[in-house]
């Protein structure tokens, strides 16, 4: 329940940010509103370690942006070369993380990583299918992810 409360506070702050005034009234108002908003999604919101999760979410956001810039640059390089010569492929990535939130996080990170795009998660949540724009060697790509994002996420959420 505390987690819910914290989320609530955060959303109130978000409200403050969006409206651009952090006055007491506005924040209280924002709190009320976000309560209402959360009420709508109450079913999906269990309890959990929101605190850390939120703190690290910000960190991950930064990571996102960094990776995004990088991958965008790669794509640029690819599309502006006169002759596009790639070996695209869809690889099966064995997941270590198993929580929905973590899987989601990882999938999005992967999508925003150079040349990879999460297509699907297997029913048993063991495999993440990733489309790669250029995979001469699948295993190396898998390893990159394993040692890259997935570890980070495990650090963050375990």
């Amino acid at each position, binding site marked *: 329940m505390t987690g819910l409360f914290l989320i609530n506070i955060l*959303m109130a702050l978000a409200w403050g940010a969006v*409206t651009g005034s952090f006055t007491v009234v506005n924040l209280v108002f924002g709190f009320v*509103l976000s309560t*209402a908003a959360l*009420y*709508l*999604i109450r079913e999906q919101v269990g309890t959990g370690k929101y605190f850390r999760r939120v703190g690290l979410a910000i960190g991950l956001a930064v990571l996102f942006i960094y990776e995004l810039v990088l991958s965008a640059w790669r794509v640029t390089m690819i599309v502006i070369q006169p002759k596009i010569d790639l070996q695209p492929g869809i690889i099966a990535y064995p997941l270590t993380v198993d929580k929905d939130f973590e899987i989601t996080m990882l*999938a999005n990170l992967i999508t925003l990583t150079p040349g990879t795009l999460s297509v*699907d998660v297997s029913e048993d949540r063991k495999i993440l299918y990733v489309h790669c724009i250029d995979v001469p060697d699948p295993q190396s790509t898998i390893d990159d992810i394993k040692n890259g994002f997935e570890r980070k996420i495990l650090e963050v959420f375990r």
Partner: protein
Amino acid sequence: MRTIIFRTIAPYLAALMILFSIFVLLRGHNEPGGGFIGGLIAASALAIYGIACGVAAVRRSIVVHPMNLAAFGLFIAALAGVPSLFLRQSFMTSQWLSFHFFDVDVDLSTPMVFDIGVYFVVVGAISSIALALEERESD
């Protein structure tokens, strides 16, 4: 469409969009926005929520039937024009109630009530349509 990834993120997206819609509604009198646009955003939020988590979830979350929500909006929008009757003014003459609260001025006004009515109408009607179609989809 109900992939883990989508189902995990959608509720939060929806909640954020609802917040944003209210923000757009309330500032409409001074900046672009207002009841109609706000309502549309809220409706889109519910639509996303519905696509990700199912119509039943949406119905449960808004408790009342969306049509009643819309009707209620229309009702208060129409009532918002009535107070002027008692001040010997024409229908829909705006009444302003401006008071100081802690450190901010809060303006309550019949136009605002009216705009909120519009918001409810749009949310109700549009989501009612979307949900009805959605259900037909999944039956």
